[in-house]
């Protein structure tokens, strides 16, 4: 359903952060983008959501070329981003987030509150009054209100208590049954194992391997770390 070919992304006046990333996501399913900090996971998700423009390469969603689309158009095409840091609207209540983001009633407020019960008790509270876990739930719920085909979740369990992280993992795992494919950026393979069907290992802005097993992903990450350390240890001429 999502296909990127040779995607290269650079920030203004900087070197490329992503190099020739080619990615093919099966629909429906849960896919993990695994890599260490600075690997380019967030850059890739923001590029897919239209917040960053690629310098070269293409992005296709369901066969349609969406390369370089504005985030508004990408959202309408069915790509939703649950960003790292949540990026909620602090002056809006939980209910107002649902109202502002809702394009139709594919995902009703009642369904989302059933999915995330803690939000039901906080419906009239502003986003900046919520706990970290509640904020993460609202971030995913807001994204679902846009009726996505593809949900991009950037470190969705980062910094959360294990019980809350488990709740969110369960929700993300179940989304394919509702026709939503998930691409979640995660820092290590162990976190990805419980959530995803496939893992795509991203190191230094390049896709290293595509695998179904934690062992293969971990091996790829360790190989990258070993190479990085070896490179750092070499005396400079």
């Amino acid at each position: 359903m999502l296909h990127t070919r040779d995607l290269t992304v650079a920030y203004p006046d900087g070197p490329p952060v992503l190099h020739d990333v080619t990615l093919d996501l099966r629909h429906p399913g849960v896919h993990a983008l695994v890599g260490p900090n600075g690997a380019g996971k967030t850059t890739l998700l923001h590029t897919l959501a239209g917040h960053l423009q690629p310098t070269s390469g293409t992005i296709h969603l369901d066969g349609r070329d969406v390369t370089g689309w504005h985030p508004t158009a990408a959202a309408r095409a069915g790509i939703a981003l649950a960003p790292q840091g949540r990026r909620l609207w602090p002056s809006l209540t939980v209910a107002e987030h649902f109202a502002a983001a809702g394009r139709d009633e594919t995902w009703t407020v009642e369904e989302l509150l059933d999915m995330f019960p803690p939000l039901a008790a906080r419906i009239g509270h502003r986003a900046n009054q919520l706990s970290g876990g509640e904020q993460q739930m609202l971030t995913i719920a807001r994204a679902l209100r846009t009726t996505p085909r593809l949900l991009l979740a950037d470190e969705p369990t980062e910094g959360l208590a294990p019980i809350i992280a488990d709740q969110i993992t369960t929700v993300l795992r179940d989304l394919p049954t509702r026709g939503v494919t998930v691409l979640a950026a995660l820092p290590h393979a162990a976190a990805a194992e419980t959530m995803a069907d496939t893992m795509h290992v991203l190191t230094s802005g390049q896709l290293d391997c595509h695998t179904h097993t934690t062992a293969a992903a971990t091996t790829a990450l360790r190989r990258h770390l070993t190479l990085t350390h070896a490179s750092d240890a070499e005396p400079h001429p």
Partner: protein
Amino acid sequence: MNTLVITTVDGIAYGLLLAIAAAGLTVAFGAGGVLNLAHGTFIAAGGYIAAAWTAGTWGSLATAILLATLAGAAGGGVLAAATAGLRGRGHLDQALLTFGIALVGGDVLTAVFGSDVLRPRMPAALEGTVAVAGYRYPVDRLAVLAVAVLVAVVGYVVLHRSRAGRLVRATVDDRAMVAGVGVNPRTVDAAVLVASGALAGLAGALTTPILGVGPGTADTALLLSLIIVVCGGLGSVPGAVAAAIGVGVVQTVGVVTIPALAPYLLITAMAVVLLVRRRPVPGQVT
């Protein structure tokens, strides 16, 4: 005592009118980052239209208020089109452009309406005074107060109970995430500028029966609006309303109680507010 109570009510009424004018300015800045220095000109245009169109009948008064509001909205639309290409080029470019529009607009208004201070011809029922809680109070001011309260309530309901209002507040908070839910923030910017212009035109029409309208109206209205926006916190509507009522009361009570210091009171009050206030107010752009 009688004088002070009436003056305070006057100040609150004036403050609410200023709030209607400044609310649009602060939201336009908060949502779209547009520092609109032509805002005072829209207010003056509304005032001139009200003064020119009223003929002492209810029908002409209603038409004048409607025309003033529409003229302001049209001005806001022109401004939205003019500033759309300047996004991302900083506030100075926008300020220069809107200042230029203000200068041209001011000259056009003076050329069309002359340099005298004009006042509207109100229906006979709005002339004279009425007894309220033992005090005599001018009917036209009471009517303006009622309309100002009504507009403020409607504005609050739109901002807090409609999807459009919520998207405006969301755009003030984080415009990229508004794009992320499929709504173009530039459309929100344009809508806010049109609504802001409409409110400015309406405020100009409502202020004219009290203050009249003349060549100095645009500058005074812009200065007061900017003071309100700065004191209330950039982008904050509740802050703007509170600051506007404060400005209205300080202005009117100051002129009556200590006329010699009246010109300095407002600036002194603004300096005190800025020095004392440390925390951002709700909705403020930080």
